């Protein structure tokens, strides 16, 4: 079965950039997977997500070589509307994503663009309002919502069009941990129900640990590791120059240097250490 996302030899060079933002990147992701895209600043996470949507090179000029396929479509040549039906993105700042005067219109915006029938739109908007816990805000101006609520709305807007690929680019960068968990919880749960693939690019690896079972570790535009989360963190721990692992994985690496698999949540760690779970944990 062809993977939902297939990237082969992708190289992206921005005008005036000394080195490529992405350098010969190849990876695949299947339907329903939740993949974390991590790496130090400048590793190319944002560029990769934008290349998957064709934002690079269509809206942000760059020199792009290699192949990208999302649900069989090539983002560089597929029409905007056709790709919007298949892939959606959530960014870090709600102010750059929300533009309508009411929450329900914001949700409907993407559906309107795709020519959805009004009756169908009403149904889907109502359903998503409930699923996202935003029903109380239906007629409110999105500007009045808190940062966490706005990001939940942004996730809802991305998912209401039922994309097959959901991209999250630093979705929790400006949020407190509780809101951050709510946003990622919502995104992964709804995506799971819809069978969509999720790629989450973030600096907050401690938060990510509860959601992503697979990791793509980038560094200097290259793929450093592409593996199950535990093994990926073991690679990261073995290469101190790459990036910093989650706190728990870092500790585990010191407890058992050279371990091929490292836990990154409290639950994983207690199991790994062979200790009966103490308090409630994530």
């Amino acid at each position, binding site marked *: 079965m062809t993977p939902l996302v297939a990237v082969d030899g992708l190289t992206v060079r921005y005008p005036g950039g000394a080195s490529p933002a992405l350098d010969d990147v190849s990876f695949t992701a299947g339907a329903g997977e939740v993949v974390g895209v991590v790496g130090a600043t400048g590793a190319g996470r944002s560029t990769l997500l934008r290349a998957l949507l064709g934002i690079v090179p269509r*809206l942000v000029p760059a020199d792009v070589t290699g192949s990208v396929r999302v649900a069989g479509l090539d983002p560089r040549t597929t029409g905007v509307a056709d790709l919007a039906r298949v892939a959606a*993105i959530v960014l870090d700042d709600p102010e750059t994503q929300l533009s309508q005067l*009411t929450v329900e219109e914001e949700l409907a915006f993407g559906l309107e663009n795709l020519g959805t029938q009004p009756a169908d739109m009403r149904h889907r908007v109502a359903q998503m309002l409930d699923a996202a816990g935003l029903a109380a805000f239906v007629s409110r101006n999105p500007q009045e919502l808190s940062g966490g609520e706005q990001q939940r709305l942004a996730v809802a807007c991305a998912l209401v*069009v039922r994309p097959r690929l959901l991209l999250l680019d630093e979705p929790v960068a400006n949020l407190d941990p509780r809101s951050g968990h709510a946003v990622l919880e919502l995104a992964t749960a709804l995506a799971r129900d819809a069978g969509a693939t999720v790629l989450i690019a973030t600096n907050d690896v401690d938060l990510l640990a509860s959601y992503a079972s697979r990791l793509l570790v980038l560094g200097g535009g290259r793929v450093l590791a592409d593996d199950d989360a535990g093994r990926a963190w073991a690679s990261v721990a073995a290469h101190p120059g790459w990036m910093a692992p989650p706190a728990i994985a870092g500790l585990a690496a010191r407890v058992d240097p050279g371990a091929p698999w490292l836990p990154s949540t409290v639950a994983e760690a207690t199991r790994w250490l062979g200790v009966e779970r103490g308090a409630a944990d994530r």
Partner: protein
Amino acid sequence: MTAAALPARSSWLRRLNPITKLAWMIAGVATALVTYDPTVLAAISVLVLVLAASAGVASPLARAMLAFAPLAASILLVQVLAPAFCRPSCSVAATVGPLTLYAEGVAHGLVLVARLLTIELVAFLAILTTRAPDVLASLTRLGVPSSVAFAAAMTLQLVPLLRRELRIVLDAQRARGLRTAGPTALVRALVPVIVASVERAQQLSISIDARGFGSSRPRTSYRAVPLTRGDVLGAALGLVAAVVGFVLGLTRWGPDTVTWPALPAWVAIAVLAVSVAGFAWAIVRALAFAARA
């Protein structure tokens, strides 16, 4: 638009179709624009106030009118002291020191102010009883392209956003020891705000592109503001009223056909005093704002 922030009392005026309201607003404005007859202007204003009270927007309306007080005061002052016309000659109503107050000037000034207030009352009543999203949806219904409606929605969102950003930037400037009041400070604060706005606009345009906006596919509309036959009839009547009112205003209620009673001197002096006071208050407020550190 502030209608969304008001208590949700459902009055017929609030529920009235925006297109119909727009048509009748045009009727009121068109009539007041050309009318000199104070009775007609008063009638329109009273009607507006009654409607406002019934829709629960009487006090926001009154507050909005207050914002025009400086403008009204300056119009009045100019007309009283230097009337634009005198035909065939102006009769003197009173003399205050070196100033001569002409009856026609005072009357003309009062009528201008009355027209200004009437137009504002009509317009604000329409604004305060209509929600912005409904207006945009109605316009789209009328055939206005969705990109225009979208741009209008974005612009409405901009004002509170820019205000918030400006406040933060001014705070940052104060933290660096810079003055934060007066025109220079505002101009200096505008640079980061403008840069931030441009960056935000760029990101937003990428965002909406990614959501499929601007593709050649026909767009559907989520918000359906129902347009019944009654609404269309009401709107048509409103436009007819606009034409009738305009014509009547030019012919039967114009300056030549209105006869003024002779103005006693004390009236002229009182009007002068009120307009000077209003004008001075506006100047003082402006200076205080500029001087605040």
